[in-house]
């Protein structure tokens, strides 16, 4: 069994204590998507604005455990200014790190010629979560919520 230090790394606690890109954009022009984790009551609310194919700005509010809120904060930092394709690719990589592997067709697309692997950077600190399986859904909540939002906009 892993110790708590594998889960609660300092950078995670820092994002939890001081969430980045916190707030709400005006809708419209921004788009709003909410995600819930019914089991533990975690909530995230994303507002984001696209400029063409690029996420021009994304802000987050929410409440929940340190893992869900830190992951959301880290995601907000990672996706600003990225193209929708890059964000989808990053999400796939992040979820793969959480031992969640998407349908094989999509996964093949992600690793094929037009999508090169992205640096996970700070997000790498969350890989300890995989040793605590019940917390994986906390870490992936904001990412799944963003995917839902992109799907809603059909981009």
């Amino acid at each position: 069994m892993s110790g708590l230090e594998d889960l609660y790394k300092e950078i995670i606690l820092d994002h939890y204590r001081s969430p980045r890109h916190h707030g709400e954009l005006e809708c419209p022009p921004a788009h709003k998507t909410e995600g819930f984790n019914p089991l533990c009551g975690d909530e995230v609310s994303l507002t984001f604005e696209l400029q063409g194919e690029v996420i021009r700005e994304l802000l987050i509010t929410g409440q929940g455990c340190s893992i869900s809120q830190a992951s959301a904060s880290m995601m907000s930092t990672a996706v600003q200014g990225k193209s929708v394709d890059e964000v989808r690719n990053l999400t796939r990589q992040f979820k793969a790190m959480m031992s969640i592997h998407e349908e094989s067709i999509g996964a093949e697309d992600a690793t094929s010629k037009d999508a090169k692997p992205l640096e996970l950077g700070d997000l790498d600190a969350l890989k300890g979560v995989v040793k605590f399986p019940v917390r994986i859904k906390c870490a992936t909540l904001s990412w799944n919520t963003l995917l839902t939002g992109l799907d809603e906009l059909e981009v």
Partner: protein
Amino acid sequence: MSLPSDLKSNFPLLSQTVNGHQIIYLDSASSSQKPTVVIEAMNDYYRTINANVHRGAYEIAAQATEAMERARARLATFIGAPSANEIVFTKNATESFNLIARSWGGDNLGPGDVVLISDMEHHANIVPWQILSAEKGFELRWIPLTSDGHLDLSQLDRLLDGVKMVSVTAMSNVLGTLNPIREIADRAHSVGALMAVDGSQYVPHLPTDVVELGADLLCFTGHKMCGPTGIGVLWGRTELLEAMPPFLGGGEMILDVRRDGFTPNELPHKFEAGTPPIAEIIGLGAAVDFLESLGMSNVRQHEIDLTDYALRVLNDRYGEELTIHGPPNASERGGVLSIQYQDVHPHDLSQVLDQRGICVRAGHHCAKPLMRELGVGATARASLYVYNDEADIDALTASLAPAGELFAR
């Protein structure tokens, strides 16, 4: 009389270690641990008399049937039911509520009718009514709470207007609040309404007498009272159960089946379609024997003493940093402590406690309307039972501060 001090030795699971610590189990409101006598009773059934019930004429089938029906009779005595035929075995309390809603509700509710529940109900006593209400068009009405976690009965006369069924928990699984079921039942009856009671948290912890409670129907589950999972109970008054149509159809619940229809079986079999969970019923019977050997008034006194101790040491040490939801006095509540410590999220708190071998539940406890009333998304809940002692409370108390240090913002 008090409980034996070595009670933990009756529960094999409690001698285990988790994450290098002796396990401290504080989640009995979710599911209790099982004493050896219950585990052995189920094993003995499978080893010696495993056969289907109410069918074969051979020896072990007769013994299996007799063991199952003996368990039914012990459950009837345990809750003060006038007849063993009023004990209907279900899968759990949730299925018991679905049975009531489908069978009684399907037959008796329509536009203009009202079912009265409360803001502290478990989803098991909410969602079956909501599903049926969407079909039948009756109103679901809610008894609100007072600020100290009791039911607010000040407007009960107004709330009872047009009500055909009142369905309320005898003890909150989040707040621990013990509700005045007899008073509510009497007032429900005075307007011609029936009284259903969720006894899931009450029956395992307090002496129960359905006649004294004034209930018409009572739902509870086996696994919270030292019994196995997969077995619950619906108790109902004979005349009421006889008037209710069957719930699930199939074998066992019929007297006769013809091409043009069927004749339902007598009570309680009318409501027990298919092969029942025989081993689980026998296990639940053994759990009742175990609890009766302790004495339910001793069980209750033990939990009052321990809850009182927990409230005292937690509040003394943490004061304003700690919120314990629900009534402040151990005599008006059960051993369920929903806590909020500083702004540590319950999920994070339970993770830190788990590293010390302490099992508490974090989440909404299947009571989301209540969570909204409390203004929280989740709580961490420590809940007590016969095997817990002051050392368990001390371990919990000592472990909150380190969690606070880790997550201090």
